[in-house]
């Protein structure tokens, strides 16, 4: 075990902090995924591309001379309408149908988004500089960009706001009622069509926030959406639908896994490790369930 990370324990602290802060961000995307999966029973492969699009909105603001941190307010507003439009155009035709249809249809949407973003923003890797500086810990041996701390704090604030909104507001209760039983909700006067559109819009808005945060903490590129989809899918299948604390914890777990995989395997295998982890989690759960003669549903 002559990996650098085991020789220098301080790197472990670095990786852990990075992983946890990143994981909070992943959890935010995963919460959106869980929301639409639970309410509308669709799996959205374009989730990651919505995130990247949200990021590009913040990046455009940065290019226009506005501080990109304002993106966390502007981006979700724009993305909400993008999500709403997407629902009206495509998604409403895949609700209530075979899940594979929603997977393929959103895969098509993902390809369209990728290519359009490639046209508009170019194929370069870009980052919006927040110029928040860095915090040094433990005698300058651990560097922590303030933008990462900022992103974790914003994610947590938004998540809390969303939970309160879902509990208290009329629309939030309508969404939860539809998730429990769409038919009964309809009979009791809930406009489920509107609820679905709003759910997808809220999901897209969450993606917009996450994207704006990614624009200042990580990097943006038109084709890196799919890993975010897979990460959120993974978090959801580990945590279950609609369980926010579990989503947060498994998000942080995933962040930790990624940072350690980065140090141990090398950066070139980072995305590969994420996808392999997905396969391992699914296979692990399959074997666990097959002992009871059940399967993942």
């Amino acid at each position, binding site marked *: 075990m002559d990996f650098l990370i085991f020789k220098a324990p301080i790197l472990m602290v670095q990786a852990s902090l990075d992983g946890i802060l990143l994981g909070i961000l992943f959890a935010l995307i995963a919460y959106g995924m869980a929301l639409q999966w639970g309410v509308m029973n669709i*799996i959205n492969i374009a989730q990651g591309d919505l995130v990247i699009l949200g990021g590009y909105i913040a990046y455009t603001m940065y290019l226009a001379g506005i501080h990109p941190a304002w993106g966390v307010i502007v981006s979700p507003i724009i993305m909400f309408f993008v999500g709403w439009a997407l629902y009206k155009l*495509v998604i409403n*035709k*895949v609700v209530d149908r*075979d*899940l*594979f*249809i929603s*997977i*393929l*249809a959103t*895969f*098509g*949407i*993902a*390809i*369209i*988004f*990728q*290519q*359009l973003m490639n*046209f508009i923003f170019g194929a370069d890797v870009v980052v919006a500089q927040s110029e928040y500086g860095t915090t040094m810990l433990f005698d300058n041996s651990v560097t922590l960009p303030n933008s990462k701390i900022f992103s974790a704090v914003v994610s947590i604030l938004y998540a809390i706001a969303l939970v309160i909104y879902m509990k208290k507001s009329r629309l939030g209760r309508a969404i939860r009622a539809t998730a429990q039983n769409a038919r009964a909700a309809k009979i009791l006067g809930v406009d489920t069509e509107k609820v679905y559109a709003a759910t997808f819009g809220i999901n897209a808005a969450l993606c917009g926030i996450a994207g704006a945060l990614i624009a200042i903490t990580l990097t943006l590129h038109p084709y890196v959406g*799919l890993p975010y989809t*897979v990460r959120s*899918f993974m978090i959801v*299948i580990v945590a279950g639908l609609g369980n926010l604390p579990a989503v947060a914890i498994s998000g942080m777990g995933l962040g930790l896994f990624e940072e350690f995989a980065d140090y141990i395997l*090398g950066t*070139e*295998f980072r*995305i*590969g490790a994420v*996808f*392999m982890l*997905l*396969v391992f989690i*699914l*296979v692990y759960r*399959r*074997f666990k369930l*097959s002992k009871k003669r059940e*399967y*993942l*549903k």
Partner: protein
Amino acid sequence: MDNVKQKDLILYSGLIILGLAAPFLFPGFKVQLTILCVLIVLAMTWNLQGGEMGYNTFGNILFYGLGMYLTASVQVGMFFPLAEWTESGGEKTFVHTTSQYFQGMGVGLLVAALVPTIIAGAIGYAILGLRGHYFAICTLGLGIAAGEIAGGIEIIGAGQGFTTPPFPKDIVDPGARGDFFYFLSFVLLIGTFVFIKWIYGSRFKLILNAIRDNEDKAEAMGIQTMKYKIVGWMVSAFFAGLAGGIMGGLIGYIDSTDVAFDGREMGVFMVLMAILGGKGTLWGPVIGATLFHFLKEGFWTLILGWQYVALGVLIVVIVIYFPEGLMGWLREKYPERFGEVIDEKDRKAQVELK
């Protein structure tokens, strides 16, 4: 009955003659015809999972990419040090002689057929225990992970790609390379078609259909579903590996994520072609692949730059509006042609109910 067989005979011999004559009739489109053969093979093998078994896989690209890398690696590795070959990139310090090239290709294709089959058998038990969308996402992850991992392995060129051995220079005929790959893929196509047609007449196909329609009931009837699912996947892996090997030689350059484990293009194409033609039918994937290839080649050059947008729109439209495909639509329209007997009374009763 004899009448039907005679019709089939005429159809098949006509198609084979057309296939044999095609490179001479359209010498400018040899590469396209080769790709068409490979696409049909991929669509037909995907159909075994997605159409017949009800297991919508994105993972067959794994076997395709593996076959590609294996063929090229064996072809180089049999005669020269592989690491030095890939390190030198496009610069050729080593040159295959004619016999070395074909020997390497032969052995490489053999390996490309066998290794993916073995891998499909090995991982099949774990992966095929997943159902529905979990299976779809898991295989999607598998295919992309393979691309990412292959992009990090130095000996097969890592991120900068792997140049496959060039066609031997001793053969001066400029059309020889195209002919060679065309007939190779044509033989593969015929082999695949004959094998899958044989499956269609066998009990195996009925079992796959039983798994698709209700796996739990099939199991309750005493069918060892897992065994059949794995065998079905191994069949697909065998032909997909061969298809990949041929494509690698044809393209001449292997990139981990853009050519071999190309989930964004080939991996989706095979699903789309089978759905477009009609999944769960023998001819559906063949027609779907042909139609798709014509559409793609026709529009790709016209809408340069926008092709992925068009592809995305095509996916959305096909999936939402034609999930049953061409054959499904024909079946709806002319059920008697497909040997379906419709009870006239029953049909009328249904119409009246509406």
